């Protein structure tokens, strides 16, 4: 009789042990998966990229006192901030690609920073040794990438922290300018206020786009700890309650 039953319903005898052994399972949409999805959305967002570029451009304008700084005597300041202004908007898209294509993205960032250093070299009166210029560019780019990676790890749980850190970075640039180049800054106050306003506008846009990424990257299914009891023949979901977004 049992042999006949095994032939009549082989699925019953094949799958029942698997069903009974189903214990707690990892939810399909963990916090790490959500963070990964959010990072990918943010990295592919061109509006966020341009907003970051606005912030970087505004910070650079403030750092060079809206052009009041002499590039020949302040080459170090100008070139360092130039590198940061170029690397910052590209850091987030590169960060998302770094995981599968680490070497290629690192080379891209290094190339961008070298271009910025070369441009700064051209406007400088003094011929600095090229190795020191390359080292400066590499250190600055490396610091920027390291900072973005650290921010990326924190923002995986709290995306809006990027907004606060952008404000912080801008204020640090302002503090640096106020402390070391106040005289030059006093020559172009209206232009610097405009640049600062543009940078703050960029941060506001960044905050809105990050919030949008949080909405877009929400999981569309929520699972519970499985009940491990599944009525006969239906074995697609070993869970008590499944809730899906529409």
């Amino acid at each position, binding site marked *: 009789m*049992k042999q006949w*039953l095994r032939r*009549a*319903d082989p699925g019953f005898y094949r799958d*029942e042990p698997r*069903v*009974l052994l189903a214990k707690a399972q990892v*939810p399909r*949409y963990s916090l790490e998966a959500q963070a990964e999805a959010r990072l990918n959305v943010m990295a592919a967002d061109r509006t966020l990229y341009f907003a970051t570029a606005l912030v970087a451009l505004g910070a650079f304008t403030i750092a060079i006192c809206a052009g009041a700084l002499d590039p020949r005597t302040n080459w170090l300041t100008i070139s360092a901030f130039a590198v940061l202004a170029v690397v910052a908007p590209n850091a987030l898209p590169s960060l998302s690609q770094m995981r599968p294509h680490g070497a290629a993205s690192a080379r891209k960032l290094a190339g961008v920073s070298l271009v910025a250093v070369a441009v700064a070299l051209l406007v400088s009166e003094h011929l600095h040794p090229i190795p020191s210029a390359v080292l400066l560019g590499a250190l600055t780019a490396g610091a920027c990438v390291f900072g973005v990676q650290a921010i990326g790890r*924190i923002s995986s749980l*709290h995306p*809006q*922290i990027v*907004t*606060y*850190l952008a*404000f*912080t*970075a*801008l*204020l*640090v640039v*302002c*503090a640096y300018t*106020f*402390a070391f180049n*106040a*005289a030059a*800054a*006093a020559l172009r*106050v209206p232009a*610097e*206020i405009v640049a*600062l306003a543009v940078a*703050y506008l960029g941060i*506001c846009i960044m*905050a809105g786009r990050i*919030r949008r990424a949080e*909405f877009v990257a*929400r*999981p*569309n299914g*929520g699972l*519970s700890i499985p*009940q491990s*009891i*599944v*009525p*006969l*023949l*239906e074995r697609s*979901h070993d*869970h*008590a*309650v*499944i*809730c*899906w*977004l*529409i």
Partner: protein
Amino acid sequence: MNAAELEPPIRIETTLAPPIGMAALGAALVLAVIAGALHPAIRALVVFAVAFPALWIVVVTALTHSTARALRSAGAKLPSHMHAMESFRLTYTLANVGQAFPAVGVLTNPRFSSGEVKLDSAPWAALPVLEAGRAGTSSWDVTANRRGVMLVGPFRASVELPGSAIRSTAVFQEVYTVNVLPAEYHLAPFVDTLLAGRHVAVGRYLKLPAATDEYVGAREYRPGDAPKLIHRVLSLRALDPDQFYEREFQDPSREDLSLVLDTSPPIDGDDLLHRYRLEKAICFVAALCRMFAARRLTVRFVYQRAPHEVVMLRVRPLDSDLNRLERELMRADLRGNRVTLGRVVRDEVRRYGAAVIFVSLRPRELVEQQRLAMVTLTPDHLPVFTREVVHE
């Protein structure tokens, strides 16, 4: 919207932004103030640099909190009962009773609990913009696989404007109950072989119906039937002049057969396997009773609900009786005992003879059950008679 029907939140939960971000921003503000305070020539620049972010964060934080407080619940729509393995659409309506500002980026989230299983992390549905004085609806598709009572609620609505120092979550305490009945099975067509020789009403000892009998239909005439019970109208309509139809009567106060469900816990320690078999048996019993009801048979369903409580249900071919049976099966659990079960089975066989179907949770019949004139369905038999689970 009627304002009186809107429920305010019972509390507002506030979650602070990451302290490291706020600390860094605070330190940067102080640094900028100190650096710029020594240079009066750039005072306007310093004031603008410090005031804008501070004001923005303060204003946005206040808006976030006031928006969460202005939210009201207009209720949820969901069924009061459903079958396991089925889905239903859950909709939840929120209203914004604020006067001026819209609620931007509101995330809503329900909580589910079914027995000891609790789902707190259901997906958040977004309402992009909820204008002042308007309502918005969030929807989810919910599948319940576990029979029993499922509680939906409380609901949460979260607001966090970009740059806000807090996330404000309004909690609405409404809880809705959904009765998740056993899953619907389809049974194979040959399941009525279980009735072969088991139907109590097979064979009549009296030619004419008793006063308590009711007319239940007509069948073809068989030699030996009472001529007084011939259905004249159907017989006149028959194409063959030699064909007759006989009226059938049945005593509505008497059940046609008895169905006993085993709910005794395992004695060999394999609790998981036993529970799995119980779930299968419960769904099978519900499907079997529906099939019997379709054949206009009255079933007496017996099972042990608690150690000292035996439940007997009369399941007539009526929706109300079938619903009552499913609600009873929804709560069935392994709370019986072998002694009481044996006594119940013997009593049923004494009353109904061979018209007893015993749904057991053990793979083999016990020796004393083999001697009884009833049919015993073990877990090995159920898949033979089960075709598929009904779900959309």
